[in-house]
């Protein structure tokens, strides 16, 4: 079980990611008197309301006023408390971006932000409630740690781990209906240390959030159908990025594809690309995410299929990259 959970696996599997978050935070609240909670009229849907019900004197609803909420969180942290703040990712990282940056990150305060409805996980709500920019924005803020858990079990691990991580932490979760890819939380979760979910030698998939499970399924099918050996990495921490696991994949598999529920610009794909480029080694590389557009409306599973972020889409992209003529020699004079 994940450290944050003490109920059985069956319960964790039937709870959504946000429900797990709410329960873990409420339990942490009993262990740590300095934890306070804030939300902006989204206590129910972000499930921080579970904490609020248990510790009403330590919870502040800011109303629909995110800028003030993040400023208040900074003040509470300055008073020696540890605020957990939850609202949707889009309002956290854009409506209140400057408060997160100037009040919290600049002062390096112990504010833990658990942002829900990341990516296109609230697909049917439309662009106003999608958030395919947050990883890019958050990772550009100095002092900020950025975590995208793969499922509810990892969310529990991340929420517990962020308490002992000094400074601000941004944990991005989905709407909360994503299936689990872990069956146990005892896999040694550590902030900044990626997890190899599947071994492989032909190609590496680097994923975060909802794409991890899809990549695991794609890897299984590719092995059975094509005999391809695909490595799957769960890059749950985008910042600080586990560069070593990327450099190892470059050397050992020579092909890397990133998959994320985020704009292809600025997120996981860009972070991995930076490591690939700076490695100075030849490596076939592709990024898959939302292709620099505002997503269509629809249920998330339909959208993930449309944007190639489900197992079928991942398989197709793997075959495409494997089928390309990949030059490992030094024929630089060929030009473009």
């Amino acid at each position, binding site marked *: 079980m994940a450290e944050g959970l003490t109920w059985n696996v069956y319960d964790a599997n039937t709870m959504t990611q946000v429900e797990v978050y709410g329960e873990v935070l409420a339990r942490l609240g009993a262990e740590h008197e300095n934890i306070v909670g804030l939300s902006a009229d989204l206590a129910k849907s972000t499930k921080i309301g579970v904490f609020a019900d248990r510790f009403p004197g330590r919870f502040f609803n*800011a109303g629909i006023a995110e800028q003030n909420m993040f*400023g*208040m969180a900074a003040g509470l942290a300055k008073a020696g408390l540890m605020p957990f703040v939850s609202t949707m990712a889009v309002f956290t990282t854009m409506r209140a971006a400057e408060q997160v940056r100037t009040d919290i990150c600049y002062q390096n305060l112990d504010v833990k932000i658990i942002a829900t409805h990341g990516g296109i996980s609230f697909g049917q709500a439309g662009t106003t409630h999608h958030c395919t920019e947050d990883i890019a924005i958050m990772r550009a803020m100095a002092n900020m740690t950025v975590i995208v858990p793969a499922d509810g079990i990892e969310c529990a691990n991340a929420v517990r781990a962020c308490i002992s991580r000094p400074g601000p932490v941004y944990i991005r979760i989905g709407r909360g209906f994503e299936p689990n890819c872990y069956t146990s939380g005892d896999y040694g979760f550590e902030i900044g240390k990626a997890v190899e979910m599947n071994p492989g030698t032909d190609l590496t998939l680097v994923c975060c959030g909802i794409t991890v499970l899809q990549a695991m399924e794609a890897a299984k099918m590719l092995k059975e159908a094509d005999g391809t050996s695909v490595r799957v990495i769960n890059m749950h921490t985008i910042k600080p990025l586990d560069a070593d696991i990327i450099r190892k994949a470059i050397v050992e598999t020579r092909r890397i594809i990133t998959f994320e529920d985020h704009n292809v610009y600025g997120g996981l794909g860009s972070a991995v690309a930076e490591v690939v480029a700076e490695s100075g080694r030849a490596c076939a590389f592709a990024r898959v995410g939302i292709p620099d557009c505002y997503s269509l409306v629809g249920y998330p599973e339909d959208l993930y299929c449309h944007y190639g972020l489900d197992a079928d889409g991942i398989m197709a992209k793997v075959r495409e990259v494997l089928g390309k003529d990949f030059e490992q020699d030094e024929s630089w004079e060929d030009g473009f």
Partner: protein
Amino acid sequence: MPLTGQEINELKGRAKQLRRDIVDITFWAGGAHTGGALSMVEIMVLLYYKYLNIDPKNPQKPDRDRLILSKGHAGVGFAPLLARRGYFDFELLKDFNKFKSPFGMHLDGTKVTGVDVSTGSLGHGLSMAVGLALGARVKGESWRTYCVLGDGECNEGSVWEAAMAASHYGATNLITFVDRNRFMVDGPTEKVMGLEPFTDKWRSFGFVVKEVDGHSYAALSAAIEEAQGETGAPVVIMANTVKGKGVPFMENDVRWHYGGLDSDRLAESKQLIDRADIG
């Protein structure tokens, strides 16, 4: 308790020193937000020498009162006050704004001893002050939070979000000042973006408003003591001030929102400051 004549005389001396320091640093730094630093002098001197429970020798004293200078651009008036109060050596301010100096025009609390909260982006201070005040309450501690706002920054919606929250949560351990000097960068506040009826706005947000002459120690002191005793609602002290106060050629002149001084003007400024009787 009303201030004694001796106390007022001492405060006047502190204020005179602070105004001299402000023009000195304006000269050393090659330019500064001089006007808005001069307008808040009496408020800040009174707080730092009379009302704040602080100990410069123990700057992190857990039960100290907190002060947030939300109008962070007035750092040129805040830094010398902290230095004279004993937080650090005044000589360090000769490097104000210079390469690797801990002192930039907007003070960084992670670098400057005595600065509880880093400010500079307008409209942020009151939210953080509300958070501090609620934090004291969660912890069952009796220290107070003071917040000094500029009037121009009250254009920011976040100020009113914070006001709503202070009132909603009954943050009576928070005392807010507005340095109502009536000018912002582009001109008079009422021309750029009108704030009036300003006190009515605060009242309608649930505050008790005390409107005073922001250069009168007696008036400010009475308002602060009433605010400290207020248990029904948070208090805002609307301090009517003069931008550039103490240096007549700067007073009510928008060009002195941010200005520079040559050595002749610096000398003239100091003579004018020495001659003025404020408070």
